[in-house]
């Protein structure tokens, strides 16, 4: 997602990472009990996961995250008027890239005087399932996170 953000930045596309609750709290990154702790976790996330996009932190009660469906790793795309034009319940860079390239092409087509009207579309996209990488992420949070995930999903 960092590379995608860099690729489309010059075309007027902003990208942010919005830090939420810890989906898999563990010994190293436990559940949040204060905004100060949440801020520290977000700073650590920037350094550990090497997030180069601006990171913004939701309120301690997850007001924004909850309003948008509170899935652990969603991606939304907004237009300048504040209308969501893409939402996915999981983040997949190829899916997001496909969508943002389409929307940038819409801008180009309008520049070329095409008359375009919005319509709704639903689509089932596919993401890579990398269990080893996922478990490495859980282990980073701590043994508790690994064990709880195993118990929940095997």
């Amino acid at each position, binding site marked *: 997602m960092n590379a995608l953000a860099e690729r489309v930045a010059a075309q007027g596309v902003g990208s942010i990472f*919005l830090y939420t609750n810890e989906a898999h709290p563990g010994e190293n990154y436990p559940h949040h009990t204060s905004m100060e702790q949440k801020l520290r976790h977000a700073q650590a996330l920037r350094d550990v996961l090497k997030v180069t996009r601006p990171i913004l932190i939701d309120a301690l009660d997850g007001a924004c995250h909850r309003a948008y469906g509170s899935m652990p790793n*969603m991606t939304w795309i907004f237009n300048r008027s504040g209308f969501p034009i893409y939402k996915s319940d999981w983040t997949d860079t190829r899916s997001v890239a496909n969508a943002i390239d389409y929307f940038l092409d819409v801008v180009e087509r309008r520049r070329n005087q095409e008359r375009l009207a919005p319509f709704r579309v639903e689509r089932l996209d596919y993401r890579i399932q990398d269990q080893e990488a996922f478990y490495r992420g859980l282990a980073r949070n701590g043994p508790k996170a690994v064990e709880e995930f195993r118990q929940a999903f095997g």
Partner: protein
Amino acid sequence: MLDADLLIRYNYDSFVPEKFEPWMRFDESPPLGQPAPDFSLTRLDGTTTRLSEIWSAHLYTIVEFGSFT
């Protein structure tokens, strides 16, 4: 005013179904093509901004929600 019960439920301390499943509410999320809800957010330096400040500054804005996992 923060709701103490909500804070505990949202910031669940264990990844167990009875604690995380109630938050899987994507089907209830805002529809596409209509004005989206706006919220105050905090930058890493502790200053605040709003989601609307972000989206209004760009042609499009990609927002990834997430945590360490």
